[in-house]
């Protein structure tokens, strides 16, 4: 949810103190000496949660009314309300959320996981990235978010695109049909093979294997991306139309990818940077664009028997201020790094749990504070990896996704 969805309008809306303080100055004790993004030199006044919340499901997990479809799965979710991060601007915060540090050039979590677990997919890359947009003019995102950093580049995320070639350079040249392409690849393979006896260079064997993989991808990727043959009932479940490039389509693709053994699937849904128009963007654009789609994905994973083996994580790079932002039109909220929420579901997750709290004004994560590095440690743990042992030596140092930090969030584990 790139841009930073507000915790007050999603899973942290039970804030009677903040409601009482609505329109009042934000107490100095919170904001003094703290970094502030776009609210620099503005009056800092409290803004109450903009939507009602209620308790949902058997677990009674509190959530606003913006996610009626997701509500049906509420007892599967583990909600963390006490997340915090180190960066207050999109670029560094996204970099931290994806690579465990704000310094550029480090491997992304998907790359670490590929490096740690390898790939199960036979004719698709093991780490894919899809993106969509709804809501406010989106923040840029960069290849850094799915880059392999100093890990070998076979571990980097591959973008699957809804327009143009689904994978860069997967389209055959004009005038070269599948059989002629096969001939070329076969000839390359045969000629490369002739060199093996004399040179015994293992890179030649790898090269041959990679050409095979590339060739298979030319069929498998378009095949994967073509959801037009999915039954109407399935399309309806997610709320997507073939070729619409929506988050809902990407959710359906995510299921298809998971089925094919792709290890790490990352969906960027952009447009959550609500400096203004918070109510409108949340109610009419962002939440509706994900609610039915995610609920559909959870349902679909369950009925395909994939839910218990798939870890689903929903969240953004940071949260939003309890203070109103009013200098850009209809009221919004600014970037906020001291407290926000995310949720997890699926393999290894205890459903119906909420973990941690923010303070009564939703400013600071208070109880069971959970850093991004802790989340990463937990994700790796759920995938069977000890985050302290997954290391790679670079510039004389053993690097980790969690740097020198990270502790498991045990209460959400099943």
């Amino acid at each position, binding site marked *: 949810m790139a841009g930073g969805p507000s915790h007050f309008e999603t899973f942290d809306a039970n804030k009677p103190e903040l409601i009482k303080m609505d329109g009042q100055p934000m107490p100095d004790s919170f904001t003094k000496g703290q*970094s502030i*993004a776009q609210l620099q030199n503005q009056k800092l006044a409290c803004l109450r949660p903009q939507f009602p919340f209620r308790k949902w499901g058997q677990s009674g997990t509190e959530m606003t009314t913006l996610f009626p479809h997701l509500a049906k799965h509420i007892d599967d979710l583990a909600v963390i309300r006490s997340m915090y991060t180190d960066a*207050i*601007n*999109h*670029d560094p915060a996204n970099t931290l959320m994806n690579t465990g540090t704000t*310094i*550029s*050039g480090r491997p992304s979590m998907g790359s670490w996981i590929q490096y740690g677990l390898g790939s199960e997919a036979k004719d698709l*890359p093991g780490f894919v990235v899809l*993106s969509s947009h709804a809501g406010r003019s*989106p*923040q*840029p995102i*960069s*290849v*850094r978010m799915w*880059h392999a950093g100093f890990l070998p*580049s*076979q571990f980097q995320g*591959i973008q699957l*695109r809804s*327009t*143009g070639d689904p994978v*860069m*350079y*997967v389209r*055959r*040249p*004009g*005038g070269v049909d599948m059989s*002629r392409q096969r*001939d*070329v*690849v076969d*000839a*390359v393979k*045969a*000629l*490369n093979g*002739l*060199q093996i006896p004399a*040179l*015994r*260079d293992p*890179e*030649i064997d*790898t*090269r041959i294997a*990679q*050409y095979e*993989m*590339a060739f298979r991808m030319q069929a498998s990727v378009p095949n994967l991306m073509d959801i037009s043959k999915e039954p109407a009932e399935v399309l309806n479940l997610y709320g997507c139309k073939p070729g619409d490039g929506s988050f809902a389509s990407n959710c359906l693709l995510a299921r298809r990818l998971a089925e094919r053994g792709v290890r790490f699937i990352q969906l960027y849904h*952009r447009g959550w940077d609500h400096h203004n128009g918070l109510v409108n963007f949340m109610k009419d654009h962002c939440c509706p664009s994900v609610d039915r789609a995610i609920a559909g994905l959870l349902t679909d994973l369950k009925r395909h028997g994939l839910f218990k083996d798939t870890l689903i994580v929903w969240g953004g790079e940071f949260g939003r201020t309890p203070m109103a932002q009013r200098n850009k039109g209809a009221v919004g909220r*600014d*970037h906020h790094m001291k407290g926000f929420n995310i949720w997890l579901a699926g393999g290894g997750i205890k459903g119906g749990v909420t973990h941690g709290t923010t303070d009564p004004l939703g400013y600071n994560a208070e109880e069971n504070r959970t850093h991004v590095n802790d989340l990463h440690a937990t994700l790796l743990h759920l995938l069977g990896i000890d985050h302290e042992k997954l290391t790679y030596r*670079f*510039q*004389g*140092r053993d690097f980790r996704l969690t740097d020198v930090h990270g502790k498991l969030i045990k209460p959400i584990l099943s």
Partner: protein
Amino acid sequence: MAAEVLPDKVDYNRDIKPVLSDNCYACHGPDAKQVKGGLRLDSYEAATRELKGGLRAIVPKDVEESELVYRIHSDDADERMPPTESNKSLTAREKALLKKWVAQGAEYAKHWSYVAPNKTSVPEVEQKGFTHNHIDRFILKALKAEGFEPNAEADRRTLIRRLSFDLTGLPPTWTEVQAFVNDKSPKAYEKLVDRLVASKHYGERMAVYWLDMVRYADTIGYHSDNHETKPLYRDYVINAFNDNKPYDVFTREQLAGDLLKNRTQSQLIASGYNRLNMNTREGGSQPKEYTAKYLADRVRNTSTVWMASTLGCSECHDHKFDPFTSKDFYSFGAFFADLQETPVGGQKFTPVPSMAQEAQLEELKERQKGIEKILNTQTPELDKALVKWEKNQVVWQVLQPVKAESLNGTQLKMQKDHSVLASGKTPDKDTYTLTLKNVPEGARAFRIEVLPDNSLPKKGPGRAGNGNFVITEVLAKSGDKGIALQNATASFEQTHAGDKNPYKKWNATSAIDGDIKGAEFGWAVLPQIGKPQRLVFEVKEPLGGKNEVTFVLKQNHGTKHTLGRFQVYATAHSSSKITAQGSVLPPNISSIIAIESDKRNAQQKNVLAAHYRSIAPELSQARKVLGEVKSQIDGKQKSFPTTLISTSMAKPRMVRVLPRGNWLDDSGQEVKPAVPDFLQFGKAPEGRASRMDLADWIVSRDNPLTARVLVNRLWAMFHGRGLATPLDDFGSQGAPPTHPELLDWLAIEFMESGWDIKHMVKLMVNSGTYRQTSVSDQKIVDKDPYNLWLARQGRWRLEAEMVRDNALAVSGLLVKNIGGGSVKPYQPAGYWAHLNFPKRSWKADAGDALYRRGLYTYWCRTFLHPSLAAFDAPSREECTVERVRSNTPQQALVLLNDPTYVETARIFAERIVSEGGKDDKSRITFAYHEALHRVPQSRELELLSALVGKHLKQYQADTSAAEALLKTGAKPANGKLDKAELAAWTSIARVILNLHENITRN
């Protein structure tokens, strides 16, 4: 060295330091805050000190009393070191080494790279055919000691291919290969090396490596990743390598070129090195935070580029493995605190004209001076013309208001320049009554000048919201007697909303018509507001000697269309008609003309003459030329290339140690620029140390790191790995050099040669070590899989840019121009879709720009060209000293399907068909010569002949498919060649360009 055998004498740097550093320093190392149990193992004094409880970790020569030896061998999990939770453990050999070292006295030595290189004598060994220079003697001695023999020299075809890629990044041509293979001269090899090192493409090849390290790119890197191209810096680097600029000079120019005395443009451009870091324009970013980020970035980069030091690790804490402190980090950063930059927002570029451009500008300025001299010289002819001109000039005399009254309450204030300014209440309508004096004798006309003023809406001259006014009627009186007015004209008459006015415009006449067509109509000026306008009218009878007049200005249009600021003039000029048209003399000229010519003083005469020259028809041609020259100068200056350079501020930013790297924490001590404490040598500079002092320290003969670091990296270029690894960490965590004496010898040779890079390059590639074949016996490979001892050459995939350059060169498409702006070859549509602020898309270039070498490709940091990225070109967000060399399906997809490679294949096919003879065999042979520089084997011929036959038939049957293939890329296909044939040979060219061999240097 077999694992079981321990060296007779355990060497601290080689055998012990890496073990301690890797396993123990995290808790018992230089980071004072992390020390456990009060024990540090990073110095002899600390390790042998008595600890709490009377124990000593190391008692030299006493294994039994040394707690360290006991702990590492203990079976008790609670006692054993390193502890289980550290995930570290010692091998049996490491334990044995530590024990033996303690038994031998636990001698500590300073880390090898922090001790100046040691000049040792060259080993006196010789082997015919192998030892070409001293390098080989060091290598040979080690080879023998390890039980290896040198490998055979590679064949000439391999050697020229290897040398061409290594030294120019381009393949040789088949003609060059043959010339070399057939060169009987005993110095054929050395001659080839000399030719390649002298090639202008040598600089391009070396630049690729340097640009990776200094993270050169065309965009800012953070968030919106906007355009910020600096190709002049790239050209500087290419030229520096081609001109063989000594490395110390190269270093000084980049770190401190702006501080050099009599600096040249090129040195200024070089100082742009300090500005190559990523920067941000993201809204809501805090300048203080980003200033801290840029400082850290520069410390990481400079210390890695020149010293292979991981000083960057000390941003948050003292270094865990090397003796760098957090204070060292920030003191190093303070060297750059003088750099002028924009913490958040666009950076300021500086024009840096080339010498030719500067000369052209100088010439234009000389021309300007010449013309100005003509325009400033008064001649007798001009004097005569001036007298004639003067007679025809209307001299307006400004009238001084004595009284100014408003009917409806507007405040009218008389100004020093004799204008009247309205303020206060703004009535809908008003009438101003003014009494004015200084009316000249025999006045024949009046002029009302309406003026803009900052206090008025839209700067006036009126007080209506849009800055307009309407003067509906002007009445003039002399005493009680009315003055009849006629021939009203204006500098501008409003036609806007003219249909509402009976005159169809808001003209001057309606202001003196006695309101016969209505009281609300008059003179107005929309949309020419915000500037002066004038209304002129004649009197029917010249006024006699009346000094004072009264003007009544009616403004009865309504909606606040009243006057804001104005002035009244009169003239006694006697020409037939006086109108508002034409230019009005400036007040100072008017007043000079009003003085009789013989009563004017010298200054007045000069001013008048100068004014005349500025309008004299006699000089109009010169003025026209001057205007042209000035606009040429302006255009020239605007055409100057610009770049980011270092500019030193008089008052550098204050730098503090940031506790745990936290930029919000102001509690750390303030630091001044200083080099790391433990690497201090020589005399500290007086006063605040500058970037020049830093550069001097880096390239000082006493600096133990700089020369070693560079020769080690050059070595890696030619052998695939350094003598010391990794290339970017010469600290404790790096491996000690395999050939320490050779590394030191090379470093000293480098410095003694005057930091001569080409000298070192030639030395390395002329060695027998370099000339070996890369193919060797499996047993040798098994015994030394990483080729530490160099009993063979290396074999590796070409770098990203070379993969591209090679394909373009083989096809003949490559455009070999050196330098210039970045270029945009084809890139898949929509690849930049995730960029914003602003949204943008990649527009491929046309013509030659499509076929430039890879190093000129536009380097977008967040979305690097996917074709380069697939072959491991780095994003250049951070320093890259060693690229990874992966082997991926994306690489296959690029070579198979990227239009660049399909286009090169079909252009290569044109060469094959037109230059390769008639039959398949000769054509395939031609293709192998050109691309792989060898003769095809029979199996290869068979395979490719079969393929071309098959595809020829297919394309003959399906010409539209052939046409589609030949349309790939911008270059039109050669229409004289048969399409099906060309398409079929394109298949062959694609196969060859996709071969592993084609993208491999061996």
